[in-house]
């Protein structure tokens, strides 16, 4: 029995909790991608940098708050800085839309043109971020680091294996849950949400019904900015803030959106967790787990690992290819927002 508990603790500590956290971060990013795709009909490659930008503003505000002594211990101060981060990011995305995307939208440009334009926007934002905060690591976490320490857990339960739960992990999962619920409520129960869905479903019909397209576009960008800022800040809190890392996040985020079916919010969230858990499950070494669960005299020389951790990023690629070959419309096809 103890062996089983030990094995489960081990899995929870190294797979389940990190997987849920990482999955939530990916889901927030993928929701943003999916929303832009559903309403504005293009793949927004600038999503990663939008996350970095939102996180950067939040960090700057956090530093300001810290310097005047504001703190909400045990929670990180960054949480109260997020609304300002969202506001500034929303202003930036709206400005970029006005200067860049609107021109192409008015001419009903091909989605490929939008995609390429968004790559340009990505480079612009990347430069802006590096110009303001620099390319280095930034630390902005404060508050209590752990809710449960591995050592404390061992003493509490008497097990061999420890289970640690970081404050940032709990905060990430909780906030992602709140944001996602709020967004579904907004899309399904408010007038603006419904008009967004109508616009996404059939643009011309929506226009004929008197829906104001500018308003729909504006609301979409504000929501995208909010999702990006929250996702980016949570990732930065939990791991570390470094502009380049957000560009690397782009691949798993797009993989998540595509696995779930682009344009489908439920799919984006499911996709986020599918990608996160696949990355972890395939690169995890199961030696100790098998030692606990197997017969007592079991001896293992290898680590029982499917893929080296170097191949973590390749897992998203593999899943992307498999999905595109077997079920190009994604797991939750058919219904967009």
């Amino acid at each position, binding site marked *: 029995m103890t062996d089983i508990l030990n094995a489960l603790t081990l899995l929870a*500590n190294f797979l389940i909790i*990190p997987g849920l956290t990482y999955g939530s971060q990916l889901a927030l990013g993928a929701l943003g991608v999916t929303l832009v795709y559903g309403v504005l009909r293009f793949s927004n490659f600038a999503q990663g940098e939008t996350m970095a930008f939102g996180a950067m503003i939040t960090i700057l505000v956090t530093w300001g708050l810290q310097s005047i002594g504001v703190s909400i211990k045990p929670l990180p101060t960054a949480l109260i800085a997020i609304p300002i981060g969202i506001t500034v990011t929303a202003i930036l995305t709206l400005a970029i839309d006005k200067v860049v995307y609107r021109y192409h939208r008015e001419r009903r440009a091909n989605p490929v043109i939008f995609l390429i334009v968004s790559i340009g926007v990505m480079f612009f934002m990347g430069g802006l971020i590096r110009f303001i905060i620099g390319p280095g690591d930034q630390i902005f976490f404060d508050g209590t680091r752990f809710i449960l320490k591995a050592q404390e857990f061992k003493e509490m339960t008497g097990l061999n294996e420890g289970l640690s739960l970081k404050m940032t992990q709990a905060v990430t999962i909780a906030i992602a849950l709140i944001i996602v619920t709020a967004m579904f409520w907004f899309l399904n129960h408010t007038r603006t949400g419904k008009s967004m869905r109508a616009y996404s479903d059939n643009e011309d019909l929506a226009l004929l019904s008197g829906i104001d397209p500018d308003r729909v576009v504006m609301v979409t960008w504000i929501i995208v900015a909010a999702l990006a800022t929250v996702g980016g800040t949570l990732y930065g809190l939990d791991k570390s803030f470094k502009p380049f890392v957000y560009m690397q996040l782009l691949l798993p985020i797009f993989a998540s959106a595509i696995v779930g079916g682009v344009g489908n919010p439920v799919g984006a969230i499911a996709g986020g967790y599918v990608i996160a858990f696949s990355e972890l499950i395939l*690169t995890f070494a199961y030696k100790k787990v098998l030692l606990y669960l197997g017969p007592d005299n079991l001896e293992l020389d290898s680590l029982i690992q499917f893929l080296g951790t170097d191949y973590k990023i390749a897992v998203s690629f593999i899943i992307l290819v498999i999905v595109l070959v077997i079920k190009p419309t994604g797991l939750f096809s058919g219904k967009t927002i």
Partner: protein
Amino acid sequence: MNKKIIGGIVVVLIAIAYFVLQAPQEETADKTTNEVKLAVVLGFTGPAESLAESMARGAELAMKEVSASQLLLGGSSVSNVRADSTCVDASAAAAAAERVISADKVDAIIGALCSGATISILQNVAMPKGVMMFSPSATSPALSTLEDNDLFFRTSPSDARQGQVIAELLQEKGIKSIAMTYTNNDYGKGLADAIQSNYEAAGGKVTINAAHEDGKGDYSAEVAALSQAGGEILMVVGYLDQGGKGIIQSSLDAGAFSNFFLPDAMIGESLVKAIGPDLDGSIGTVPGTDSKGAEIYAELATKDGFTAGPYSPEAYDAAALTLLAMQAANSADSNAAKAKVFEVANAPGTKILPGELAKGLQILKDGGDIDYVGATAVELIGAGESAGSYREILVKDGKNTTVRYR
């Protein structure tokens, strides 16, 4: 119309910014005949950037000292130019070295910081151009056997030696098994292999020897694999500002390891500051001596306004040896100077400590012989590398403290 004007303004602004940024590089002063010019090519950006500044100041301190003495090659002054070799980008390193040799016409290079960058500069630039290169901190064992036309020297020991020292230390501490992760480059792989072969020969067990990439946001998957392999201590052959820090942070977060072994590139103030009290009790090694030279050097550095960090004394010695060899050869030409490096570095001769470079120059000028001791008790062996003595580090109360020298 309006858009065009704004577009035009943006283009003009970009053009202005471009020229403003370019300007400093164009001011490459013409070299006067009575001047010896050295390039300090170190990794000012990248995973070991926190070490570079103190190293560069060390090398420049030696140059200033020689310059002030007015004794080098009939009163030549020494000037220097800094260039960024990065640490991970081999082509950027070669380009930086190419620039200082072609545009700045330097006589020798002090650098580079990391082994990969050093190998790249040596093979692509220094050897074809016939310029002497003296690294304070490249420690890859590969550099001992690499073809170098005798142009390459280092005041740092080879990691083959550090591997031995670490294996001995682990034995003495009674540590029977280690998990090891290394940064995926020439330095990391070289040192990890040296540790593994020495430690296993001494009867220890390496449960896992896995690479990690620098510059990632998340190392939890790497740490999960390391923790499954198990081991009494985690050997982190990485960089203190990069993956090494990430691995340690992640291990502590997951409760995977609580004791760490920190080889030379993990020793620095920035790491203990970033990790905090959890790092207490970790052990490490970094090249260093308890010689009188080290003390004198630390004082000289303080007087000059900087702290002598890791590899800073080695940088001072590298610059000093380069200039002393030029004096002995009576020429700033690399091919003449390279033959004299062993002569000035090793016995017999008058012992020269830091701050006594003028004395050394005078003896050489008079045709005498010197044995440069310097800040690190330099004794060159083999293909021109330091024999290597190490400082055993224990992290205690948030500080790197010295246990003893070995």
